[in-house]
């Protein structure tokens, strides 16, 4: 039983990171109807920024600064590479974001170099005993951070003027413009938010580990997550992230019972889930039915 619960907590930690990444995808998709494949690069960029800033600013200061800087970076990308493509087919823009992803990652990789870079978090691999369970502190930090951010975001969309405008613009762009909403502003804020979320996610992926050039592959798991939760549903992104994370850890935890599946089945679990979801419920748990598939 303890083993099960510990796996679940590890899964929640992992899922929190997925949820943040997936939220970024969903926010951009809702605003612009485009899936941005640049998220992995922003995630890596955010984590690398933290490794440089953690010396002078401390972990939380570096995290905040990197979040803002990555948000600005995403904003810059939106203005220069994506905005001129407004009105073009979603496919074209998606491919452009793919290019942006590669370009940004090449630049960021140059800053990683050959050294071992760490985000300098206060937890490392230390553990704490909670209600009889041995839990890694970093998982607690991941869960709490994600919960706070998600709550803040949902409050933002619900109560603030700009959040409301973003929801309206995602529903009917032209009608929102007629109310005086600046759709360009909505795009910009969406990209900046997604960039910031990716930076936080990247940092918490790297917590207790090293930042390396291959870390970005973790962001790919956000794709199964958004397909499970529904492309245009922020709540679905959060729930989907948590489900995929927990499932992955459970599979990893009980893998020894299924030796015939091979050694690393947990790595492909999210994609198996994605396949099943696409077959059974292609618009996801909370997605709108007529959502375009990209």
């Amino acid at each position, binding site marked *: 039983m303890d083993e099960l619960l510990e796996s679940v907590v590890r899964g929640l930690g992992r899922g929190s990171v997925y949820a943040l990444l997936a939220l970024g995808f969903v926010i951009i998709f809702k605003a612009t109807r485009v899936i941005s494949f640049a998220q992995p690069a922003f995630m890596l960029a955010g984590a690398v920024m933290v490794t440089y800033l953690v010396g002078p600013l401390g972990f939380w200061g570096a995290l905040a600064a990197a979040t803002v800087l990555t948000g600005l970076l995403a904003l810059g990308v939106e203005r220069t590479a994506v905005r001129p493509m407004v009105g073009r087919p979603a496919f074209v823009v998606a491919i452009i974001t793919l290019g942006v992803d590669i370009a940004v990652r090449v630049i960021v990789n140059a800053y990683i170099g050959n050294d071992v870079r760490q985000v300098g978090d206060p937890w490392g691999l230390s553990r704490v005993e909670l209600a009889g369970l041995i839990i890694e502190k970093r998982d607690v930090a991941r869960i709490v951070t994600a919960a706070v951010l998600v709550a803040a975001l949902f409050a933002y969309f619900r109560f603030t003027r700009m959040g*409301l405008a973003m929801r309206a613009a995602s529903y009917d762009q032209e009608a929102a413009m007629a109310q005086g*909403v600046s759709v360009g502003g909505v795009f910009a804020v969406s990209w900046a938010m997604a960039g910031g979320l990716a930076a936080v996610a990247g940092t918490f992926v790297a917590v207790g580990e090293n930042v390396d050039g291959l870390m970005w592959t973790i962001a790919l798991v956000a794709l199964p997550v958004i397909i499970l939760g529904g492309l245009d549903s922020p709540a679905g992104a959060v729930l989907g992230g948590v489900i995929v994370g927990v499932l992955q850890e459970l599979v990893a935890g009980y893998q020894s019972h299924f030796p015939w599946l091979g050694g690393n089945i947990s790595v492909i679990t999210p994609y198996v889930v994605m396949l099943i979801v696409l077959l059974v419920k292609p618009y996801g748990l909370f997605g709108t039915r007529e959502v375009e598939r990209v």
Partner: protein
Amino acid sequence: MLQVTNLEVVYDDVALVLRGISLAVGPGKIVALLGANGAGKTTLLRAITGLLDVHDGEITKGQITVDGRPIPRKSPAGIVRLGVSQVMEGRRIFAELTVEENLRLGAHLNPRSVKENLGRVFDLFPVLEQRRRSTAGYLSGGEQQMLALARALMAQPKYLLLDEPSLGLAPRLVEQIRDLIVAINETGTGVLLVEQNATMALSIASHGYVMETGKIVLDKPAAELLGDEDIREFYLGTKSKSFKDVKHYQRRKRWLS
């Protein structure tokens, strides 16, 4: 005065849809704009509110002024700030949002006086106050039209552009909407009423324009338009003719069959 002078609009760089339109809406007046489908009425409203860009349209000639100041091109927000609000064709309310959220969006550029405007709008539309927390998509057609009107009023416009507010509503509701338009107008808001329902529009308007294929073909006080022979025939349909008279050809003698 909302003034449109010699306006020309081109879609996709090739389709000339408005050719030299001029019209004026005086402050506190109701002006009706009639015309068949495809005459360019909606395009004219898009040109005024800066929404042409979305549809690949462009103003190639002419100008639009609000109280003497030219409207900013390609800035819907700037135009709302100048005091021109639009109720789009087909209502276009945000169905996923609540009634109150829809209204707050109408006040997007006017966030300071949301409370005051909500009170004003709820006085005009008591139904909306009762349903302020319900999802807008679940309102009836008439209530949705009221919400669309109310949302536009939240910006405290000096000029209100209405695109077919009677579309798809039962006759009783059309009357109700008409009375509401008059009530809104009495608070000093100028109204440009685009309608297919000519009887309704001309019954409350002081002046009327008739558009056909991108041009203004008639421009008269509403009372005169109501009496105009052509208008009666084409838009009001008051003559109840027998189909025998409509037939304008002689039945040909057929030899076979």
